[in-house]
């Protein structure tokens, strides 16, 4: 049942992506409206999917990479809907909906079985806390990167004096920069808490806080990159294009840490996934 909802949500997000794409091509606001409501409907279905999965498994449904990806795309769409209230630019949705769809498509190639029983040591409240913090943090970085893309794109348009209709649909550079600043602080805060909670969980489960497995190492690298970004912004006054480029670079790193490490480098976290109880 949760998979049915998941598929419905995915189809609606894909539909929204198509709607938004047409909207970008012909700049017809009615298509953007279609895209938006399709996204909202998809979000509702997606929420039901998560809810059903939670009830069915009797625990927070964050135990597999599939779940983590599903939750990440849910968070991205949720954040998009929140941001949209403040910055009513349909172009945001035009990037957020395809991104969420892509993550869900990646997720649906993975096993969605809820392995029973969960390894007892993992059946802890640290699981939802750690995963939710990490995933929501990543979703914030995703939104930041989307804002960064829009910034770079629009900045080029203005600099090269190509002012066309698409231009009018983008939020101002100032607003995009503000998203970057707020997103950076919030995302960095969540990432920090995510890493700390992971360490505490490891400490309570296995007695050691840090074991330098690939995921942990890459998370730390990501953390340092964002720490540098915070420093450049706050202390050196970096903004605009540089901040936008860094947001995009940072998110690439996040995605590598999130998905790539498991697939390419294996290790501690990935090992858990194969036996079904991973912490992402």
């Amino acid at each position, binding site marked *: 049942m949760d998979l049915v909802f998941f598929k419905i949500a995915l189809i609606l997000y894909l539909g929204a992506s198509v709607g938004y794409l047409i909207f970008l091509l012909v*700049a*017809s*606001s*009615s298509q953007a409206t279609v895209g938006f409501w399709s996204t909202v409907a998809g979000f509702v279905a997606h929420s039901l999917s998560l809810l059903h999965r939670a009830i069915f498994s009797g625990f927070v449904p964050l135990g597999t990479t599939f779940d983590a990806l599903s939750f990440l795309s849910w968070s991205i769409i949720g954040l998009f809907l929140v941001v949209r209230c403040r910055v009513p630019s349909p172009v945001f949705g035009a990037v957020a909906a395809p991104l969420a769809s892509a993550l869900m498509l990646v997720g649906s190639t993975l096993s969605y079985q809820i392995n029973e029983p969960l390894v007892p040591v993992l059946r802890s409240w640290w699981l939802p806390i750690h995963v939710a913090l990490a995933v929501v943090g990543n979703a914030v970085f995703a939104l930041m990167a989307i804002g960064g893309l829009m910034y770079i794109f*629009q900045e080029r348009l*203005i*600099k090269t*004096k190509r*002012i*066309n*209709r698409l*231009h*009018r649909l*983008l939020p*101002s*550079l*100032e*607003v995009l920069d*503000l998203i970057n600043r707020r997103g950076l602080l919030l995302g960095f805060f969540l990432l920090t808490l995510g890493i700390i909670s992971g360490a505490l969980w490891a400490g309570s489960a296995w007695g050691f806080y840090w074991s330098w497995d690939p995921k942990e190492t890459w998370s730390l690298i990501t953390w340092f990159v964002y720490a540098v970004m915070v420093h450049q912004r706050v202390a050196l*006054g*970096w*903004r*605009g*294009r*540089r901040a936008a480029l860094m947001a995009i670079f940072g998110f690439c790193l996040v995605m590598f840490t999130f998905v790539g490490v498991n697939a390419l480098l294996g290790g501690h976290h990935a090992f858990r996934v194969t036996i079904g109880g991973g912490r992402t």
Partner: protein
Amino acid sequence: MISSILVIGLNHATAPVEIREKITFPGNEEGRVARSMLDVEGVEEAVILSTCNRAEIIGLVEDPEATAERLIATTGSIHGLAPELFRTHLYVKEGPEAVRHVFRVASSLDSMVLGEPQILGQVKEAYRRASRAGTTGPILNRLMHRSFFTAKRVRSETGIGLSAVSVAYVAVELAEKILGNLKDKSVLLVGAGEMAEMAARHLVSQVEKPLLVVNRTYQTACGLACQFKGSAMPMEQIEEGLISADVVITSTGSCEPVITYRHMKEVMRKRRYRPVFLIDIAIPRDVEITVNDLDGVYLYNIDDLQAVVEENVGERRQEALRGEAIVAQEVSKFMEWTRTLSAIPTIVAVRRKLETVRASELARLNGKLSRLTPEDRETVEMITRAIINKIAHDPISFLKKVGKRSRSKVYLDITQRLFNLDGTEVDLDAHEGESTDT
């Protein structure tokens, strides 16, 4: 007689300003001019539309050709002009063409600046005055309401009103794109000439912070600053201005660039890379073009702005084509409505005619029927009613079907002659369909 929608008018495209400023239908505030149009023979409903770019009479009239002549003469006498003076500048449209014209005007497809938003309000005002004066009836009420609806559709379904089509508006739009809300931003004028003043006026109205002016002659700077309630600085302090301002308009007569790449690079560091929008309207240029390559600096000169205007005008034209398609749809919907409108009265008249025949026949035989019991009497009533309903059923359902076709007028005409419906109120309405078919 045939009733038809008629538009007589002139606008910026057909008449020079000397003529336009003479024909304004003065004194129409209470719809009095519209009222007086009803006194013209053949005019049934009228709306007067008068703006700085157009003057029009929209009417429902009988015998459009002759009535148009009378309306032109009346217009002449209202303004104390000989009709020959303005006749050649007039357009006269009738039937679907007139409907199309009204819809296009309301949708701003016929405006001098395509897509400008004021015209809809002016059309609404014209209609409000006419309906207060009681000069509109069912046809023009519907026509005007449909024109508002069409205008709304054109505005929301196309991008006709979205892009800025003057240099001043483009500058403000770009400033908003770069800097967001302009309220808490500040503007610096470098050079205090007439050009600077013109360029700054619209921008300054969007900004709450006081304007800064620097100029080679301090006196002139003070003069312009006073006018905008801003403050003036001597040229030597230009760097301070550049550091604090968010939008800079340069318009000095200097032959050498006033703002160089190296200068601006230093300024940006001191600004902590806050973005700045430079508008260079001077010829020769006041700002080195390479300044645009600096991070956070956006430089537009007057040619760049002009190019954006051209681009936007082209875009509005594109969008106008989509607007025309919407208008065409709405015109055919409206014409459809006028056709069904004319079939219904005919059907009503046919029914009424048959009922009259039945009632009069029963009345004639009243003496012979007096022997019947009330129950029998009731039965006779029922039978006769059933007979006429049966007879009327086929022709009426035929008329209902035909009412939606373009050839309906032929059948409506035949029906009226067959049942000898002439001289009833049906006549006029039925023929209205005929006129709108042309």
